[in-house]
């Protein structure tokens, strides 16, 4: 199977090179057969990568311990669930996994547009093939996952050597989230290749109009959704596994995943400026370029460890390849831009500072400032070493100081932006749209002050959250009221109907609402506290409203590890509410330890309990308890964000014509149903 897999990879490389070279030839000659063959070579590349990935997975499932990668990342007792995850638990496998996910996107694009956009697609195909060639080069020649263990036999020939068992999977990765978090994050990273390919393709081919933006909108949103989900799952994993009571530490790899999310978010907003007003064309193209570059940079930081691996931590040679690839992309993007920049001229100018345009502008500005701050903070050790010779790093205070105010500004714009009119907003409409929400938000702030709320950032966050939630609520209320007056349906039905008629707008509101929930959760972090105590059997510990009593400990042998558990009873108001079992795990194959946190989570707060080892003085087990308010809102907000994105991806329900009420409009729209996509045109009036 390993021979099959590596052969598939070599063939995939050959096909990708053909898709790239043949695609360029097709663009020059415009020969239809050549265009077709380049496209089919692109599809073949994808299929071969699928085969290679499945064969590596097969090697894991068949416990083939003659393959180096399988030996280092699996063992016989490993649960089936984690044998799937073992695929991306190391360098070689994750790079193959990158290629695999990218292929899913590339294949879907090639299939979906095989008979459409004939002018643009050859360019797009070439860009996608170019990216695939890079990763296939790594898969084939730099970090092949199919290397077999071999040793010289009696006859002097190299023979396969099979181990009896593998080394097992790193304990940190043996956790359910690790099975779903990397696929999500990688789907985000790889997904941004598609808008990048379309943007670069459209620029290279001087493809007229905003068509590429309409075409890539849903691809960008899918990538963005996976990226969001990946980041939140990663945060949840860090929260539940690393046992330090927090979910975000501004670690280089965390930052790396956050950077393309920021520029991707900026892009999703600023494209609307181009769609509606023909502005920001240069900006949008560069936002896509930068987002893709940051995705590659993110993969590079994760894989090479150039930032976190300081002196003692071995650096990987793979870095050079990534740096070369990044330089090449920058070069190509600059070249394409300089050559064809006159085609990106703006059609309009900003009219007023209180307008939708300017809110988008500021939204983009602060997202970019945040991105620059995080990027420079993350790469600070690298740059400071270049410039001063000293390797200097910056920590959480640096990132928090900049990003907390930025987050609050962004939250403010989330509420304000969608309700401002294009071009110029009148004072009347400001009063009508923001009067109540502002009053409700401030009222919430005053009430909070009376209850002794004294954390300034959290207090502002609270006011803004209430304000934004009210603006969103008001929008749904007003729209649903109109529909209800006509149809007589219930309020909820009307609100659903309203959403389905303009999924993009109302899906967007749902995403904003999700972000409000996330912010509520983040604001809770200002009130975290924790306590640590050596515990005898029967001892108790008080944290917030909870009393923790150590009932005992036990040892539980499992298939792959041995768990030492503390049996902790949780009481509230002297009434027992539940048992928690924080664990220490000892993995037999690797002789490594793992920690399992026990969490009792409510909407108000999380009780987070860690078995922190035994005290060196007393030999008693140490219980470390944290009380983290509102954390659950973050995960809940994430679910809402994903749901909103899915809603926004749905096509609009046709009933929008009935709402318009004008017979002529319905007639006018009729012939369009056969030709152009009607949803794109109908949206115009509504957004």
């Amino acid at each position, binding site marked *: 199977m390993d021979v099959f897999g590596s052969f598939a990879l070599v063939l995939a490389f050959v096909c990708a090179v053909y898709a790239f070279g043949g695609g360029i030839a097709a663009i020059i000659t415009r020969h239809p057969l050549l265009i077709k063959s380049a496209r089919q070579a692109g599809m073949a590349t994808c299929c071969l990568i699928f085969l290679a990935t499945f064969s590596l997975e097969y090697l894991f499932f068949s416990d083939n311990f003659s393959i180096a990668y399988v030996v280092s990342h699996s063992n016989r007792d490993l649960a089936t669930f984690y044998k799937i995850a073992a695929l*991306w*638990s*190391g*360098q070689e*496998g994750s790079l193959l*996994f990158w290629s695999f996910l990218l292929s899913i996107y590339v294949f879907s694009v090639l299939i979906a547009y095989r008979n459409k956009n004939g002018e643009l697609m050859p360019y797009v195909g070439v860009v996608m093939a170019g990216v695939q060639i890079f990763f296939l080069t790594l898969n084939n020649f730099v970090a092949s996952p199919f290397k077999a263990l071999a040793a010289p036999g009696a006859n002097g020939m190299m023979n396969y050597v099979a181990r009896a068992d593998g080394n097992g999977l*790193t304990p*940190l990765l043996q956790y359910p989230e*690790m099975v779903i978090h*990397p696929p999500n*994050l*990688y789907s985000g990273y790889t997904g941004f290749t598609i808008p990048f390919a379309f943007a670069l393709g459209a620029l290279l081919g001087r493809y007229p109009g905003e068509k590429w933006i309409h075409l890539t909108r849903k691809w960008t949103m899918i990538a963005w959704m996976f990226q969001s989900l990946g980041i939140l799952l*990663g945060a949840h*994993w*860090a929260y539940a596994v*690393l046992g*330090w009571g*927090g979910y975000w*530490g*501004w*670690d280089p*790899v965390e930052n790396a*995943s956050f950077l393309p999310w920021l520029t991707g978010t900026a892009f999703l907003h600023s494209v609307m400026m181009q769609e509606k007003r023909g502005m920001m064309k240069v900006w949008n193209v560069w936002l896509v370029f930068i987002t893709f570059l940051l995705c590659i940079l993110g993969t590079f930081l*994760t894989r090479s*460890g150039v*930032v976190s*691996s*300081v*002196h*003692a*931590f071995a650096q990987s040679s793979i870095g050079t390849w990534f740096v070369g690839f990044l330089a090449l992309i920058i070069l190509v993007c600059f070249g394409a831009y300089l050559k064809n920049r006159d085609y990106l001229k703006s059609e309009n100018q*900003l009219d007023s*500072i209180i307008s939708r345009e300017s809110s988008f*502008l500021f939204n983009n*500005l*602060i997202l970019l*400032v945040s991105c620059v*701050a995080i990027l420079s*903070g993350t790469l600070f*050790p690298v740059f400071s070493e270049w410039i001063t010779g*000293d*390797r*200097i*790093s*910056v*920590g*959480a*205070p*640096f*990132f*928090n*100081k*900049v990003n907390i*105010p*930025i987050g609050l500004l962004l939250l403010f714009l989330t509420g304000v932006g969608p309700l401002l009119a294009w071009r110029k907003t009148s004072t009347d409409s400001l009063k009508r749209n923001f009067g109540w929400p502002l009053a409700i938000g401030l009222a919430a702030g005053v009430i909070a002050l009376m209850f002794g709320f004294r954390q300034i950032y959290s207090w502002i966050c609270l006011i803004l959250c209430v304000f934004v939630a009210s603006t969103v609520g008001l929008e749904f209320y007003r729209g649903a009221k109109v529909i209800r007056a006509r149809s007589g349906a219930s309020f909820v039905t009307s609100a659903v109907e309203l959403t389905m008629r303009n999924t993009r707008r109302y899906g967007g509101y749902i995403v904003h609402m999700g972000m409000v929930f996330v912010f509520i959760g983040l604001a809770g972090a200002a009130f975290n506290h924790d306590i*640590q105590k050596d515990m005898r059997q029967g001892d108790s510990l008080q944290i917030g409203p909870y009393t923790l009593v150590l009932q005992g400990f036990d040892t539980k042998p499992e298939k792959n590890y041995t768990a030492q558990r503390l049996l902790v009873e949780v009481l509230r108001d002297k009434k027992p509410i539940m048992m928690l079992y924080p664990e220490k795990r000892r993995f037999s194959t*690797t002789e*490594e330890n793992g920690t399992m946190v026990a969490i009792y989570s409510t909407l108000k707060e999380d009780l987070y309990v860690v078995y*922190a080892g035994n005290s060196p003085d007393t030999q008693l087990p*140490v219980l470390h308890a944290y009380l983290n308010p509102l954390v659950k809102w973050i995960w809940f907000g994430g679910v809402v964000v994903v749901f909103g994105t899915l809603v926004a991806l749905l096509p609009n329900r046709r009933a929008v014509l009935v709402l318009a009420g004008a017979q002529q409009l319905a007639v006018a729209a009729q012939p369009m149903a056969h030709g152009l996509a009607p949803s794109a045109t109908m949206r115009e009036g509504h957004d």
Partner: protein
Amino acid sequence: MKKQAKFGVGIGVIVAAMGFLAWLGYGESKTYYHTIAELEALKGSALSQRMRIGGTVAVGSIRHLSGRVDFVLEGEGKTLPVSYIGTDPLPDTFVDKSQALVEGRPGPDGRFVAEVVQAKCASKYEAAPGGKGGAAASPTERSGM
């Protein structure tokens, strides 16, 4: 005022404010990376800076004492005695021969006083995909959000 100028002022204020905050945060959290060998050569004010030092934990050197953990880091043929005084438990990966990164300040008696210890197993730990890379090899203290 012209519209462009208004935008210019708005953008300028935001960028300047963020720049100032970044500078504050930088001053508060900047940490120098040094090797054990470089540490011996440091003089004067450079010795009072917050710094990170990497090395391998010497076999049998870890001693759990009351309120602190003592161990010896080795690297480039030099050794450095370290006292970890942080409150968080040491990471699961912190054992003999593991690669460790300590963060803190040199003490007056030549011992390095560490507030944070990161460690990874020398034998096999690889950067976790997508998730946490080398640094996520369970740091003892992380002051995030």
